[in-house]
């Protein structure tokens, strides 16, 4: 059992990146320099033997990670990434965008009554919505719509497949201009007269 193996075992089993001095705690015979040397040995060995993983140095320390080119093969394994759910605000915002797309942030906020920038960004990060156009009006607002991934995830062929629209509350069902009583700035081009 040699030092390189010990460092490898520690790196492998840890579920967080470890700094060299942390790894050195594994055994009295180790120190930071020895550990870093061992890591370089591992990096060379993994490279030479064409392992599909590598020792990567991150800001937080060292970690063994799969090499990026194998990503496509890992996508279908649900034991790999942790699943997550959308929050309540996320669901509501997604529903509004789905049924009223393309729609600007101001309008979404008008319906929800709260600021939505963060939620929209989260939905964008999850690739469920994206900017699909720029509005015609003042400031040329970004308009959001649902993505192909949205359709894939929920099993719709197209936006026209969104079910049972007739049961929806009026605000989502009808293409009434949102915020109409607040002036026409959101929905109509200002008159340049």
């Amino acid at each position, binding site marked *: 059992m040699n030092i390189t193996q010990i460092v490898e075992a520690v790196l492998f089993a840890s579920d967080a990146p470890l700094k060299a001095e942390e790894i050195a705690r594994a055994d009295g015979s180790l120190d930071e320099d020895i550990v870093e040397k061992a890591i370089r040995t591992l990096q060379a060995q993994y490279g030479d033997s064409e392992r599909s993983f590598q020792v990567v140095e991150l800001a937080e320390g060292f970690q063994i990670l799969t090499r990026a080119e194998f*990503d496509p093969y890992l996508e279908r394994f649900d034991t790999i990434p942790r699943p997550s759910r959308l929050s309540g605000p996320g669901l509501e915002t997604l529903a509004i965008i789905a049924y009223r797309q393309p729609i600007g942030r101001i309008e979404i906020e008008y319906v929800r009554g709260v*600021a939505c920038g963060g939620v929209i960004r989260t939905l964008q990060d999850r690739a*469920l919505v994206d900017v699909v156009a720029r509005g015609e009006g003042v400031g040329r*607002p970004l308009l959001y719509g649902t993505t192909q991934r949205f359709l894939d995830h929920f099993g719709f062929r197209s936006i026209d497949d969104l079910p049972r629209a007739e049961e929806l*509350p009026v605000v989502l069902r009808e293409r009434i201009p949102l915020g109409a009583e*607040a002036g026409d700035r959101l929905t109509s081009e200002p008159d340049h007269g």
Partner: protein
Amino acid sequence: MDLTGAGSTLLTRDNFLVVELDRFQGPLDLLLHLIHEQDVDIFHIPIARITDQFLAAIQVLRSDQLEGAGEFLEMAATLIRIKAQMLLPRQEGEEDQDPRAELVHRLLEYEQIREISNCLKTAEAERGRRFAKGWVPTRPRPEISDTPLETTWEDVWEVALQVALPDPADRRHTLPALSVSMEDKVSLIVTSLAEKVRVEFSRLLCGFEDKTHAVMTLLAGLELSRRHEIFLRQVTPFSELWLYRRREDDEGPPTGGREPVPEEPEIPRGTRRRPPWMPPEEDEPADPLAVLDVDSDDQGADTMGWETE
């Protein structure tokens, strides 16, 4: 069943047998302990003696009100029944059935389970020495969108059914200073110019105390100018800045010789239409779109400010 009488006398007689009941997982465990302690053949349990010892041991149960006392008492009853059956003379023709048979069966079976438990314990310890790769992201920077989404359409749909325009009366009328948007100012300029050819910059600031409004109004003016919708004119440094409406056929700002004539700006004050987005002089709610509920569930940092690209 009366355990007290029998138990107390037996306890004194057999007090060499000190039993800590907490150690035992149940009556079968205790029974096995008693049997093994005394090196008794499990197939020939001296039922009278074991019963007495069992009853003595569970004396403590009664006082401590241990959880599971009923199970020990039930076993005590079984032992007493077997003891009684053993005393009855065997009848002719009856199957030679030892009254202890079921108990022996259960004890053997339980002993087996304990052996298997020990095997499992060893296996568990051995397995515990080996570690899977600690869960780490497979890539240095996994996209959030790479992780599977468990949300179903039903989740979305349920929320969709709840969506309603907030009741304007419920809205909190806080107008944070930062919510000055360029859109508002663009709109202010455009609306002002809908009725007139030009407007003074200072007039656009009427009713807006905060400096932010001035900055945003200027930016809006520059933006509209960039889009060739208006043009700006200032005759001398620090003089009034004028914003001019630009018609499709306009070529550019008025030439130098034809400075704005003073008659233009005057508008009957009372008849000026208040644009919908402009906060009125009274304290009535302003434009609902400009109202921001900063206490709500969302990330408050993202206000309705200037949309950056």
